[in-house]
């Protein structure tokens, strides 16, 4: 099902759809972005703001088809559905099945994603298609992406290296930033508990024939929340004492500019993003670190030139991108700093023959890092060639893809074969299988710091898996259910090699099987704008390699059951919703002796429209509504109790989500 089918056939809707696709394709296009899509309107031809009703239909429920791999098991989360709720990337992707978010302390603190039981390292996180995973390794901190930028998030599950590049053992999180038609603008301000303030603004214009979109966001939180601390956690006595989390603040700011310019038959898209943050590191409750902190910064520059080739069904494109990262930490008396940069060039050709599309890319790039504990300035070149196809018949769609890639000294193939068969009406059977790898990071290969030792002899990790499921993705309703199995091999685990020293080895082998299901409805006007959403994940993990006492056990910190449910009503100008996150029991250790009990989190909120033109909406969001002050991250670090956020949002009409 293409985007065109879901959006009412008004020119403005098509323009928005194209803008979204172009935005996703700015850095890495997908086979779905065919030359047959509507030609990009000239910058000055951006359409008038859309009628809010049409946005509501598209944006009020997730979708199950990722543009980057249409046959993959995927959930596309629309940011508009959660407008006014001040949700970041972590909170949004936690609504999708197959995803587990690991928070390390609340707002602004480190948050990473796991898909299908993978480590954070095994999830490729993209920002507008640009990989944020650095050569250093260690996964991507989702809280480093300003929440004010999020337009939608594509969560693609499975070994997706053939489509997205090496590193996606468990899957991909692609954050697509906002893009608005010319003349659109919005401003949002949030204030709330624990000294939390958020602000964001964006505007779209068309100066001199170009389309320009500017956005900025800033957030700060003191983070000093109260919690109930257990000074004697092993005695079985639930007695806790009131305590206050301190040195837990975070600040972040970012700015982004996107531009599009028509150059005759060609089109130039450019993107610049800059973000920086500082967070305090409070430490474990039993070993507080009142002076520890961390600062990070990231800059992204990307440009893409595209146009029709020598024949009309051939689209050619070239892309250049640059990413710079810094990270500095103060841990007790120790200081560490890390600076890195990555650059990439890509050439792309797409051929559309009837209903079929073919895509080929060649990429070359490099990445270098320097930092504390790393000898010299290690760097590595990357080279990749990929080919994929999107073969469509009346009922059947098949998407083979192959990618050969060399990352420094590590070479590997990623392959994917997916297909969907339309069974009846919008009901389709979807299945896919794939294989990919993750090259070891510099941290694992070269970092000698503290108790960590490097291992230059590491091999890439491997992910191999497949899934099958039924998908019903039609106008008012999304319903999907599927099963999957993934084998992770040569996983890099840090193991003790002497008194307290740790060294990484390709020691892990894990089998993950599971069920992923979700259902979501668009608002039903006849039922007070009622919309329902639920996603469920069953994750059965099994350790296949290790000591006799751990083989066959569950992988630590992988909950067997996860459930997210949401209900909202929107009668007239008012909206109200309630959410529940249930994370089932999991184990803290590979011997499966120490169980972390199941946890249920309630959120609730609502909003009221104060004005239609300009759109003005006041929202209140209550997180952890039950005020459970005993929550922690599974490692003993406390998470905030009840948090109230009040948001005032205004903007041109199309930026508002209304019933």
């Amino acid at each position, binding site marked *: 099902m293409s985007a065109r089918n879901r959006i009412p056939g008004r020119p403005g809707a098509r323009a928005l759809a194209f803008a979204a696709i172009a935005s996703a394709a700015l850095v890495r296009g997908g086979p779905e972005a065919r030359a047959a899509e509507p030609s990009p309107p000239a910058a000055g031809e951006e359409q008038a703001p859309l009628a809010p009703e049409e946005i509501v239909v598209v944006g009020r429920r997730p979708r199950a088809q990722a543009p980057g791999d249409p046959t993959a098991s995927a959930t596309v989360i629309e940011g508009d559905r959660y407008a006014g709720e001040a949700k970041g990337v972590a909170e949004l992707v936690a609504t999708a099945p197959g995803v587990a978010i690991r928070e390390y302390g609340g707002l602004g603190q480190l948050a990473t994603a796991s898909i299908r039981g993978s480590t954070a390292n095994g999830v490729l996180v993209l920002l507008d298609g640009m990989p944020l995973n650095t050569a250093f390794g260690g996964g991507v901190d989702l809280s480093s992406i300003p929440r004010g930028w999020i337009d939608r998030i594509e969560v693609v599950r499975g070994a997706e290296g053939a489509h997205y590049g090496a590193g996606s053992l468990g899957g991909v999180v692609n954050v697509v930033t906002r893009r608005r038609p010319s003349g659109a603008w919005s401003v949002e301000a949030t204030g709330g508990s624990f000294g939390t303030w958020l602000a964001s603004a964006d505007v779209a214009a068309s100066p001199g024939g170009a389309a320009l979109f500017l956005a900025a966001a800033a957030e700060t939180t003191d983070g000093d929340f109260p919690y109930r601390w257990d000074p004697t956690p092993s005695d079985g006595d639930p007695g806790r004492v009131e305590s206050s989390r301190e040195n837990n603040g975070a600040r972040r700011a970012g700015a982004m500019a996107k531009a599009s310019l028509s150059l005759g038959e060609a089109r130039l898209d450019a993107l610049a993003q800059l973000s920086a943050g500082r967070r305090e590191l409070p430490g474990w409750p*039993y070993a507080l670190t009142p002076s520890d902190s961390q600062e990070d910064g990231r800059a992204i520059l990307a440009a893409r030139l595209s146009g029709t080739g020598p024949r009309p069904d051939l689209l050619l494109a070239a892309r250049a991108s640059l990413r710079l990262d810094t990270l500095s930490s103060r841990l007790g008396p120790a200081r560490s700093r890390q600076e890195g940069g990555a650059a990439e060039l890509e050439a792309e050709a797409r051929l559309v023959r009837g209903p079929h599309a073919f895509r080929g890319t060649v990429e070359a790039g490099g990445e270098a890092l320097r930092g504390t504990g790393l000898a010299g300035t290690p760097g590595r070149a990357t080279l990749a060639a990929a080919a994929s196809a999107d073969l469509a018949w009346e009922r059947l769609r098949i998407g083979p893809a192959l990618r050969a890639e060399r990352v420094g000294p590590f070479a590997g193939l990623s392959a994917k074969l997916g297909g969907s068969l339309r069974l009846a009406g919008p009901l389709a059977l979807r299945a896919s299988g794939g294989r990919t790898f993750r090259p070891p990071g510099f941290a694992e290969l070269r970092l000698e710091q503290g108790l960590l030792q490097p291992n230059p002899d590491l091999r890439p990790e491997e992910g191999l898996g497949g899934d099958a499921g039924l998908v019903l993705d039609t106008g008012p309703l999304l319903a999907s259910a599927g099963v999957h199995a993934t084998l992770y091999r040569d996983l890099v685990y840090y193991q003790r090699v002497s008194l307290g020293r740790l060294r990484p080895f390709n020691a892990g082998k894990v089998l993950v099987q599971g069920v992923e299901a979700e259902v979501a409805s668009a608002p039903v006007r006849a039922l007070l704008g009622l919309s329902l959403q639920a996603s469920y994940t069953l994750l059965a993990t099994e350790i296949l390699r290790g000591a006799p006492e751990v083989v066959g056990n569950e992988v630590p910190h992988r909950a067997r059951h996860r459930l997210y449910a949401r209900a909202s009503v929107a009668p007239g100008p008012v909206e109200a919703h309630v959410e529940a996150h249930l994370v089932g029991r999991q184990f803290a*250790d590979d011997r499966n*002796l120490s169980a972390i009990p199941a946890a249920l989190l309630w959120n609730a909120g609502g909003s009221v429209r104060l004005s239609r033109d300009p759109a003005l909406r006041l929202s209140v969001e209550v997180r952890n509504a039950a005020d459970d002050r005993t929550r922690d991250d599974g490692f003993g670090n406390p998470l905030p109790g009840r948090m109230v956020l009040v948001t005032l949002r205004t903007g041109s009409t199309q930026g508002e989500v209304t019933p």
Partner: protein
Amino acid sequence: MRRLLASAVLLLPLLLLAGCQKELVCPEGRTACGDRCVSLLSDAANCGSCGAAVGPLEVCAAGAPACASDVGVCGAACTDLARDPANCGACGNACPGPQLCATASCVDACSPGQTACGRSCVDVDSDRFHCGGCGIACAPGEGCHEGTCRSDIYVACNATNEIVPVAADLEPAGASRSTPAGPQALAVAGASVFSANGYPSASVSVLPLASSSAPLHVPVAGSDLQHVARHGDVVLVTNASVGSLLVLDLSGQVVGEIAMPDQQSAPNPHGVAAAGDTAWVALFGYGPGSGQSIAKVDLSGLSACVAAPGTAPCGAVLDEIDLLAVTGAFDPPGLPFPSSVVTTAGRAFVTLANLEEDATPWGTGYVKPAGNGKLAMIDAEAGDAVTIVELPGCGNPGAIALAGTTAWIACGTYSDDYVSLAPRVLLPVNVGVSPPAPGTPLPLPGVVPGKVRFCAGMGYVTDQKTGSVLRFSPATRAVEAPVTICPSSPGPFGYAWAADVACPE
């Protein structure tokens, strides 16, 4: 649901091709036999190859069956000349008719206290071939004590997550016992070995001395348990991660937990010892902002706490001795770093490592001896007066154990850089006099002394750098060669560490 998952796997031949078979990873020198890692050189059930069990009177010696040391050989068969009615006292000397064989002699009936097992008379309380009942044989090296097979000594092998039983002469004595994580400290209490296990997840293992009984593993918070000490009917465990003192009853149930002072500043409790209603806990800390003190804990409520867990606290911190305020407890810029504790005759003795900050390959840390080690003597009868004793020739003192009125202190550092400042020795200190009198250091060539224990009059010292244990005589100061007990962890970078040693009292 399971059927659904199974179907998924069947539909995905890709996964089958990849092979989802399980792979056991065994320590160096061990082989996977079924679901166990065993030494084919010494395992009685897998001698030379998996499944090749030795006979009832045999041991597995260097991978081949051999007669046990206390049985004879008749023809080519191992024969128990003390009990075999067909070879009673000598090969071919069959006891006639209904006679039984008792202690190598044919008798008409078993003497009182003996049990007839077939036509053999045995003492099931001490007979290692009929331990606790006819036909119940102890593993090679194990002894039969009160009808239970057990070894004499237990060694904590940190790198391979196991407790290895050995005989008093450090020869193998039965199968190793697995622990959930690296065992760091041991104590025998009641009829069990209590093992404090650390990284990556802390737990206390309760391993019955009877080798045939199932262990109990009790998960606790944190990842670093430093010391275990028996005190009456409870076991005290210092939880360095959490900054608390755990109290377990002899069944292994955690009946209480006592928070240490300044708990959120990481006091890092290490050694603990108790006498009467008082326990002393060495708060090692990490630097100037944590620890550097000794906590005095009131245990007068222990009985009530054990009788009805959860109804009353097991104890509370009464006082804290700030060593930074005690003259002579450290040599600036060093810090005291109190490590281990013993109690005797109303006094507590605490070793003070006296370390200063220095560069290490991984940054700076308090690793360098700032001078001689110290011994703090706390005299309860004198209002907890603290006396500091210099320990000449002993840098970075750690473990301390009592043999009579002599405290033996392990000295030396793990790092080779400071050997001149802290030679690797045992230092005897006469604590029966006041002030305590250090003796002549006992050199330990090739060993970095870790823990020290005394079992049946002999001293045992673990090596921090290897899986070896060394035996010495505190009376004669004779030192035997180290014996490798703990295997290396798997892989080319595997390591071994004999972290502690314990024995039944």
